[in-house]
């Protein structure tokens, strides 16, 4: 059964443990700017919103890639970037309408959430269960996917 990240901004305290965990898991450094998940701050409302790739069915990044560097992981359903194949042309970063594929100047390649291969570090790090890894058929996920589908019609 495929699982997805469920992001509940209500529960987020803005502690940024998820960003640290993501950066450490994927880049080996504690550097939030290298995190694939980002927490956005709403100063006026005093709220926080964790945000990352929803592994959308449309897979804009995958279709935009000119060299077949983004593939669907059969185990997790995530859209994975193969760092060996990616040339760093950045077309996926402008094609993804959610802005969740980003260029990493240090490696010259793009990075995005790959669900850590099925054991997301952000989920483990989150102290308030604002990020959970749930059955993909969960209602919240359906709504995110529906949103993804309506955002742009091909």
């Amino acid at each position: 059964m495929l699982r997805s990240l469920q992001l509940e901004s209500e529960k987020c305290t803005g502690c940024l443990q998820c960003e640290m965990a993501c950066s450490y898991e994927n880049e080996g450094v504690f550097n939030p700017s290298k995190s694939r998940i980002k927490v956005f701050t709403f100063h006026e409302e005093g709220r926080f919103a964790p945000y990352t790739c929803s592994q959308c069915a449309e897979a804009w990044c995958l279709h935009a890639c000119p060299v077949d560097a983004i593939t669907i992981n059969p185990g997790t359903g995530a859209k994975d970037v193969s760092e060996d194949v990616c040339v760093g042309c950045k077309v996926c970063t402008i094609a993804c309408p959610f802005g969740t594929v980003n260029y990493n100047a240090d490696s010259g390649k793009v990075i995005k959430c790959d669900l850590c291969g099925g054991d997301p570090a952000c989920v483990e790090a989150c102290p308030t269960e604002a990020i959970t890894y749930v059955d993909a058929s969960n209602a919240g996920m359906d709504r995110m996917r529906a949103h993804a589908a309506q955002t742009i019609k091909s």
Partner: protein
Amino acid sequence: MHHVIVGSGPAGVVAAETLKTHQKDARVTILNNEDAPPYSRMAIPYYLIDQIEENGTHLRKNKDHYSSIGIDLINGELSAIDLASKTLLLNDSTNKSLQYDKLLLATGSSPNIPKIQGIETEGVSSCWTLADARYLLNKIKKGDDVVLMGAGFIGCIILEALVKSGANLTVVEMEDRMVPRMMNDDAGGMIKDWCLSKGVVIHTGTRVEEIEKLDSGKLGLKLSDGKILEANLAVSATGVSPNTGFLKKEQLKVGQGILVNRSMQTSDPDVFAAGDVAEGLDFSTGEYSIQAIQPTAVDHARVAAKNMIQLGSVEHQGSINMNVLDTLGLISCSFGAWAGVKDGEQVSLINKDRFKYFNLQFEDDLLVGATSIGMTQHVGVLRGLIQSRIRLGDWKDRLLKDPTRLMEAYLSSTQALGFNSKVFA
């Protein structure tokens, strides 16, 4: 049903794959006129600097990909079409021909060859095909003087590769800034300043008028402002034009490129067109034009393929014109109506010392265009906001005051955050 696709770039390949996905028993043939498996021109700069091997440019990495999904990939060049008998004549010694039921013209574009004396001189080349890239890779030596004619999108993409291969580069662009068709004055000027700071010599507002071989063996390039440049090599990147040479006069309706409707169908009901050769619907202007960019080619291909199977099954919603460029490490993007719209509003942030620029263009409370320099995080939401036509409401005024709040505006407006988020009600 035999679908024939002429052209093996992203449009041709994606169309073929879409056809096989949705109509498994269809016969699908791609006609490839280059001496390499289908590849991406976007990857050529990375091949030029030896970051990847030639196969790193290939659209699909597995050699047997096409045969494994039942696509016939054949070599040949289209010389003429007989629409009445649905026959393609191929330009080869065997006088081969090919019958089709539905035809997709995805023939792409070719570089414009400037009409100047000496353009045929040895040492003057385009940088468009893998064959061009092989020639340049073999030719450029560290420390060579190289002149790049044209600082448009393609010129700027190869600019970095030329500098990284050790060339002393001089750029000649006839307009007054870099990438004039993708960047406004501020942004194009900033990219020029950046290149100057990296040691590239740039002449704007002038053009090469004549090229000759000097006694020294080098090339002499005479500019319209009277200057003379000497170079070991000259690379021409003065725009591209659609490949329609195989069409007889008035065989299909052609403007700048082949005219299509929202099904990507041409004036002949069994002939479709996609990619650089097609004048498709532009999302921002509502008009038909040539965008000549990879994401648009893929959009076209998917729509065309579905309509080749069943006409009317999907309508093209218009492609958004967008580009991303890495000029010696300075990353710039532009989206949609980046030059603004009539009676629109705009906001700019500019920091010349740090090479940062951000511009948003609004129409009412919709984001319609954007330009960024030095921004690599979440740039895709610019496309998302423009193409989804999401009303920004109060957020437009907040963005006019502080455009860096883009992500807050995006998240608040899209509610993409999960079912029990009450923050954005």
